[in-house]
């Protein structure tokens, strides 16, 4: 939210972005609007790892698609280096911003060899000749920890972890500045997940990469992220430096999320999140604060008025408990 004084333009920024989809309700019924993002602003600064967390359906992946230019926002603007995304050349943007998707099974072309898949960005951008492209692929496979002999293999011959390494190699071969990782390790076993997370950390140090790291696994986000944004039903309800957020979560939803992380410590039992169970229907969101039906601290004001973002620490929180103008504020003297 808040630009630090003297900082240059954030590499990637969205301002007041709203994204509405039209959802069919049935054969005869009129389609209804589903608001996936409601007036969201977020910036990605050079060199940081911004963790984006929230439940399924909260708009995390929509936000990623808008940042990648795969979807156009209904309202608001997407800025790259302070200039509208549309004013940049499409190819030039693709060189700088690359995605890594969740499912390594469906994001690789099954009919192409690994060498073809990984070298495709080089060929599209016309970088180098065939020999140097081949060498670049070999180097990149080495960086992600795959033996050079897989170059002639096909995705079906590889394990999930190996495929995700191929996807990472393909994303990094043109040396992008920003990598948008949408649940990069969710489909993987823990022993493979730790290898991929270590790899992402090493590559960040080596190439000075900036990551947007989308995940529902909070332990992983806590480990990797430098800053965290928490989403709920199309809004970013809390944003803070990773240390601040994990040490002292402010928003009741962030608190509930952190409470539901199951660490491998026997004897503690399963925590009571104190959340009402039902994730609301995004087509028909609750009035006021969208979180109020599940919030253990909700008051009368929460169902009536939507909270506004309140600056807090190096970010913001969007909750009546922290708004000096709200009647709930005095109850919690923090």
């Amino acid at each position: 939210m808040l630009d630090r004084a003297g900082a240059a333009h954030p590499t990637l920024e969205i301002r007041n972005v709203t994204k509405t989809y039209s959802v069919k309700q049935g054969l005869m019924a009129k389609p209804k609007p589903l608001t996936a993002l409601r007036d969201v602003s977020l910036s990605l600064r050079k060199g940081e790892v911004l963790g984006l967390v929230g439940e399924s359906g909260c708009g995390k992946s929509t936000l990623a698609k808008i940042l990648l230019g795969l979807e156009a926002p209904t309202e608001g603007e997407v800025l790259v280096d302070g200039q509208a995304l549309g004013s940049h050349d499409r190819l030039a943007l693709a060189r700088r911003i690359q995605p890594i998707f969740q499912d390594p099974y469906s994001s690789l072309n099954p009919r192409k060899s690994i060498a073809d898949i990984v070298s495709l960005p080089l060929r599209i951008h016309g970088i180098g000749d065939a020999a140097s492209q081949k060498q670049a692929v070999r180097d990149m496979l080495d960086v992600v920890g795959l033996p050079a002999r897989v170059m002639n293999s096909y995705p079906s011959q590889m394990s999930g972890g190996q495929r995700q390494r191929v996807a990472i190699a393909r994303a990094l071969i043109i040396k992008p500045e920003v990598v948008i990782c949408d649940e990069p390790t969710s489909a993987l076993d823990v022993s493979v997940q730790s290898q991929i997370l270590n790899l992402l950390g090493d590559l960040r140090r080596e190439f000075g990469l900036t990551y947007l790291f989308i995940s529902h696994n909070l332990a992983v986000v806590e480990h990797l992220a430098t800053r965290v944004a928490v989403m709920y039903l199309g809004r970013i309800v809390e944003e803070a430096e990773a240390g601040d957020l994990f040490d002292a979560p402010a928003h009741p939803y962030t608190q509930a999320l952190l409470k539901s992380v199951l660490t491998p410590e026997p004897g503690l039992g399963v925590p009571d999140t104190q959340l009402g169970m039902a994730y609301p229907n995004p087509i028909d969101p609750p009035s006021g604060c969208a979180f109020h039906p599940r919030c253990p601290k909700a008051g009368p004001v929460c169902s009536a008025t939507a909270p506004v973002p309140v600056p807090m620490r190096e970010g913001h929180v969007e909750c009546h408990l922290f708004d000096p103008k709200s009647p709930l504020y005095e109850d919690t003297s923090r």
Partner: protein
Amino acid sequence: MEKTLLNVRNLTIDIPVGGGTLHAVRGIDFSLNRGEVLCIVGESGSGKSLTSLALMGLLGKKITPRADEMSFDGINLLKAGSRQMRALRGARMSMIFQEPMTSLNPAYTIGDQLIEARMLHGGASRAEARARAIELLEKVGITAAASRLSQYPHQLSGGLRQRVMIAMALMCGPELIIADEPTTALDVTIQAQILRLLVDLVREMGMAMILITHDLGVVARVADKVAVMYAGGLVETGPAADVFGQPRHPYTRGLLACIPLPGKTERGAPLGTIPGIVPSLVGEVSGCTFRTRCAEAGPDCRGTIPLRGEGAHEFRCVHAEGRRVSEQEGA
């Protein structure tokens, strides 16, 4: 001494594949009492789901499990015919699958699917079964249960569908529930709620539960007993506190090192890894299957691997302490 409900000795599942036999499950032992939760933990391909399907008699015609013993409340599951297994399944043993969208029939209402089980197995009338369905939907935390009965699976969210699956598994008051990754597809907040619910139900109704998962966090919080599975074999078994407190097998220790521990692992520091990949289980499998990835491995890991440990906490490793170094010191 509590009477053992489920007893499995030397369960072996071989699957014929092109060019040989896949030794998917290789001689595993475990037992379970009423009121207990056993977690089988392992990575994909370790054979944990096949084990549960073997117990339920759902492996299909081409695969025949072998065992010295596989009994449920004194009934020999190996000898049970398909009619007897059908009578057990749903009534006394039931299963909760990972993906509720594919295990519920999209063409029938929730109510039809819940009521069918009770009418088939419990011999209840439609009205009795309906009342039971409403009671159980409320028990698993679904509001407006009566009106949900006329809804179809696609009208429910993932978390609600998984609750319906749990209610369905409970319709006939089973003694054993097998839950295969019941919360893997769900959000963390819903996961915590569903797991709490399952554990409470097991305690309250005196059932036994086998929970199959790859998530060590889930295991630690839910299990009474833990069985760690690797490449078709059990490498370590024991009470949850012991297995997590003093993991003895190198694989168990390796798995635990792979997960970032909030508050303990330094943020951004490299995580532990288990190098290499799971070996092929096609053809002859001998010695310790973990030796190709194990930092402690030596020449004797190719031979017969003894079962070590004291009391209920057992592990399979040639090294007395699960480590090579300490053995050398002792020699």
